[in-house]
């Protein structure tokens, strides 16, 4: 059993304030006199935490299942493509295979965009909803951190996580192709032009999808609703666009396509790589490529701004 607390057991006993009715003992608590890192460090820490949380790091095993499976599936085609290319090169069939493998820089966006949307639907509600459900926002907002910092750090964490899932396979593809080439230097020359293209495409994808998912999740604390709405926002617009376009092919479709994140990103991807869009409707609408890029950028900025607005106005 622990000894009952008596003044003599306390090393700083002389400072104990003892009156007739009670005593206050100095237990050695001190106020913090060190450096204070301030708002910037707080925001950075929150950003880092959000990024980790997007992958379920720091949480239980169950929270890691969805991000790991979705992230793993996004990388899988790249690894397979590199392995196949390496085997083909060994067998001397490298040239025959070239151009026929469906996994290339320009097709990768189409392969992974569904996975990224699912990643958003699964993880954005974790990042934005939990703090609201458990009522801990007041704890954040009573720090050096401002509400704007909080919103931006969370969105940035989500976008960074998406960027990793999106960009990593492209980089694997790039490194693999350089190494498979008979001469790495020539390989580098061959592959280098694709780098800025896929980097820009990945930035647009992460920015637009992350922005939209963050905005929805910030407005919808309940996980189930947020997940459903993010998926709805991802898969319904392209369908509507496709059907409207097939109806009267005209101006209506050209306008609402700019409200459809999936189509915007497809269009941007096609323009960046100078490839043909395999979506016939998108191709038929004949919208200038830079417009897609501008819209994606505008969409990312606008959703972040609206998310910030949400947190500035949220009533605690």
């Amino acid at each position: 059993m622990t000894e009952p607390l008596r003044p003599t057991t306390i090393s700083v006993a002389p400072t104990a304030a003892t009156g007739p009715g009670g005593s206050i003992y100095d237990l050695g608590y001190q106020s913090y006199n060190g450096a204070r890192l301030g708002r910037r460090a707080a925001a950075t820490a929150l950003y880092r935490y959000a990024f980790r949380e997007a992958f379920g790091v720091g949480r239980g095993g169950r929270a890691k299942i969805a991000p790991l499976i979705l992230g793993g599936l996004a990388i899988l085609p790249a690894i397979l493509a590199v392995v196949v290319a390496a085997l083909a090169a060994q067998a001397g069939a490298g040239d025959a295979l070239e151009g026929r493998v469906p996994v290339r820089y320009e097709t990768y966006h189409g392969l992974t965009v569904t996975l990224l949307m699912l990643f958003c639907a699964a993880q954005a509600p974790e990042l934005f909803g939990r703090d609201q459900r458990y009522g801990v926002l007041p704890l954040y907002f009573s720090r050096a951190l401002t509400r704007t910092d909080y919103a931006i750090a969370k969105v940035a964490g989500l976008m960074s996580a998406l960027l990793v899932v999106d960009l990593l396979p492209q980089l694997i593809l790039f490194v693999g192709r350089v190494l498979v080439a008979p001469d790495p230097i020539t390989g580098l020359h061959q592959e280098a032009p694709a780098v800025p293209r896929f980097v820009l495409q990945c930035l647009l994808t992460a920015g637009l999808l992350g922005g939209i998912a963050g905005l929805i999740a910030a407005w919808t604390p309940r996980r189930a609703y947020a997940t459903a709405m993010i998926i709805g926002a991802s898969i319904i617009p392209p369908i509507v666009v496709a059907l409207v376009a097939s109806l009267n092919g005209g101006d209506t479709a050209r306008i609402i396509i700019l409200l459809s994140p999936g189509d915007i990103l497809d269009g941007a991807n096609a323009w960046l790589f100078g490839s043909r869009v395999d979506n016939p409707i998108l191709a038929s609408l004949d919208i200038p490529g830079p417009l897609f890029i501008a819209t994606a950028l505008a969409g990312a900025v606008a959703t972040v701004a609206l998310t910030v607005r949400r947190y500035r106005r949220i009533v605690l």
Partner: protein
Amino acid sequence: MSVFRALLWITVRVLLGRRRLLLMLGLAAVPVLLGVLVQLRGGRPDVSRVLGILVVQTVMPIVALILGTATLGSEIEDGTAVFLLVKPIPRWVIALSKLVVATIATALIVVPVTLLTGILVGGSGSAAMGTTVAFAVASLAGGAAYAAVFVALSSLTARALVAGLVYVLLWEGALGGLLEGTRFLSIRQATLGLVAGLGGEVKSVTIDGGVAVIVLIAAVILSLTITSWRLVSFELRGGD
């Protein structure tokens, strides 16, 4: 019987959230609005394509997903499931009540949407009408199978919604195009097969109508079995 009625009643009350209803209406409105657009602007799109993409691929699975996971999943998440479980009711009866409500609620949304959209888009010509009715009947069966599967999923995992989305979008969507063999484990393919079996017009059918019926019935029975089994060995987590 009054016990079962009480189970149905509480499950319906669980489903009737304001936000969930709005979400459902928003989803259901998409194909109907498109039909209205067709009526206003003219044009004659393919009924089969519209219903295939909008209803079978999108509205039906998503509506079934939201309703299916809500009937049981939300009760487990909110902790209200305990009050059903500490009653002298065989657990399979509880599972059945959840399945019945999820199925009927899905049908109540999906079937009218299919009929309305089909008529608005395809008109009332006999060929188009035949396809529309075939789609309506098939979506009744497909929606029921989806709803049952998602009830079972929510008895297995707290993140049934994400798991269900992965099934619909990845397994049936992306993987379905790559691996032919998955068609027997795909409610979407079974529904389309059933449409064709009922004399409706479908672009690409991978399953025979009779097989489709078997797949859909098997999905419902398997889901009921899994849900009952999970409820029988349900353990209440938490406390200290």
